[in-house]
């Protein structure tokens, strides 16, 4: 057993567990109406966020979607700040103005969950343009779903980023459904990496249920981008285990299909792998669970205790404030 590798794997497992447990608590809180609004859960897709995020530097930028709790947590936004946002508190990472779909943390260069499908791509393209014009070697990672590939903005941005060789890592989380519309019912060409490659950028498909495969692919892409090779495209093939949003009746998917994908649970897969390699004992796993549970408990308690924005401040943050 290589200790460094074991430590790295444990870190990946911890991040995925944090996301999984966070989402599971959200289900409970949502059901109890303690958090409201739309709630899009990332359960099943954890390997994507964790694998990609692990390859980014602190100075790299991140633009993501409305299913972004996992990205924010993997990026290092404190769990309590994310949870407080769900509770609409000023201590939330967007002061309670954004909610579940709009998590921001500019200190960590997280430029938001964007709830317009495809809407984050131009933003990411522009952030990358700024970095390029300033000769910075930062990468902007832009997450979006398979649904966004049908939007005009996707194609405009693929073209623009490739044309100007902008440092964007396009991460398409292909979970096979744009809300309730399956990929095959919406796309003439379902090989998304093939479509991206038509814009003249490196593009390849990755098993999004395998955190190590994601990490490896992302690493390669980030290196290409940092070297000035322009944007890269990753099609991360994944699956969400739960409904599109709390709640939908999931009538558009076959129960057997869901069960089949669950057999490939990324957390389960990594756990088995680590056990087989002797990198993880039962005690260590228990300890890991306990550690994450504790963090969650503190996050929920802290979040719920956070103050609400004064209603007199309703119209703040529409324009810049005098500092």
């Amino acid at each position, binding site marked *: 057993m290589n200790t460094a590798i074991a430590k790295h794997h444990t870190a990946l497992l911890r991040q995925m567990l944090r996301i999984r447990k966070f989402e599971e608590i959200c289900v409970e809180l949502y059901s109890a109406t303690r958090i409201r609004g739309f709630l899009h859960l990332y359960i099943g897709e954890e390997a994507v966020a964790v694998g990609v995020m692990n390859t980014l530097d602190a100075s790299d*930028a991140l*633009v993501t979607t409305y299913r972004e709790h996992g990205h924010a947590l993997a990026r290092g936004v404190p769990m309590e700040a994310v949870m407080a946002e769900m509770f609409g508190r*000023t201590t*939330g*990472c*967007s*002061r*309670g*103005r*954004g909610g579940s779909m*709009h998590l*921001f*943390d*500019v200190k960590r260069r997280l*430029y*938001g969950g*964007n709830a*317009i499908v495809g*809407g984050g*791509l*131009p*933003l*990411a*393209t*522009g*952030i*990358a*343009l*700024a*970095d390029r*014009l*300033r000769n910075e070697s930062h990468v902007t990672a832009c997450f979006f779903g398979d649904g966004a590939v049908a939007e*005009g*903005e996707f194609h*405009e*941005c693929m*073209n*623009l980023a490739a*044309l100007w060789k902008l440092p964007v890592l396009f991460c398409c989380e292909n979970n096979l459904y744009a809300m309730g519309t399956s990929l095959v019912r919406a796309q003439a060409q379902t090989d998304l990496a093939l479509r991206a490659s038509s814009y003249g950028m490196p593009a390849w498909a990755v098993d999004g249920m395998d955190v190590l495969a994601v990490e490896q692919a992302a690493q390669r892409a980030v290196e290409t981008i940092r070297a000035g090779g322009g944007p890269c495209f990753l099609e991360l093939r994944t699956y969400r285990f739960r409904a599109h949003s709390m709640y939908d009746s999931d009538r558009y998917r076959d129960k057997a299909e869901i069960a089949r994908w669950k057999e490939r649970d990324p957390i389960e897969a990594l756990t088995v792998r680590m056990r087989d390699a002797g990198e993880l004992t039962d005690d260590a796993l228990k300890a890991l669970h306990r550690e994450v549970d504790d963090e969650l408990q503190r996050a929920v308690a802290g979040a719920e205790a956070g103050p609400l924005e004064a209603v007199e401040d309703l*119209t*703040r*943050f*529409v*324009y*810049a*404030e005098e500092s």
Partner: protein
Amino acid sequence: MTTTYREALREAIRDALRRDERVFLMGEDVGAYGGCFGVSLGLLEEFGPDRIRDTPLSESAFVGAGIGAATAGLRPIVEIMTVNFSLLALDQILNNAATLRHMSGGQVGVPLVIRMTTGAGRQLAAQHSHSLEGWFAHIPGLRILAPATLEDARGMLWPALLDPDPVLIFEHGSLYNLAGELADDAGPVDIDHAAIRRPGADVTVVTYGGCLGKCLDAAEQLAAEDISAEVIDLRTLRPLDDATFVESVRRTHRAVVVDEGWRSGSLSAEVSARITEQAFEELDAPVERVCSAEVPMPYAKHLEDAALPQPDGIVAAVRKVVSGGG
């Protein structure tokens, strides 16, 4: 010096590019072509392709990229060829530029300037002639400017770039050839207040952009009839400087609002509403509006003329509020 509106705009862009290396111009045909309306002619040669950046015909992508670049610390000037094309980028303007600051709880600012041509009068028909600035003026989070004079064409860009929030500048297409004297040292102007372009005592005529000249012509005609019209140029369409026009109405007790937008749900409606909200007791006649006919802009010259506010219509509206006739 004698100059034109177009040259004044170009000088403003040149000045901004020199003042701040974070500034760059981006848009369709702004570089090699020199700008659809010739505003950026010669700038590519002077500043190079990184700072005078031609884009593909992808309004959503390059407007969004401008938003991203602004967010990341640059000061982009994005040119959209005409306001009708801005609709292809409306998602980015509304859902990102105007809202990021609020959604992020104040963390993300978008110090972006978007310039575009607006308005009719050049027989460009129904997809290149509309005045949609009123729609944008509806949106919190944006600042909307409408330079109607050489001074404002020259002076509004720099303060707009200094604004920490997105600013949209609407250049009326009929003004590019406007020629006149501009002070050699003309520079940045205030972008918070409306301006009284002609003082008067009997009626307040509120307008902006391409209609300013028509209103001043009308005021001249009215002076011959002994009617003294005060002409106010809004300049900033959002946030509206209502104090200036309301104060004027308190003196004149009558108002005519002239707006090239369609009447229904227009900026003129907003101005009229604010007058009645804030100076109801001062009104001696209902507020009159002169707006474009509610029709997509026709091509034929006589139809286009008939569809737009014209001095005669403005004069008639003023007579109506002043004399009670009509």
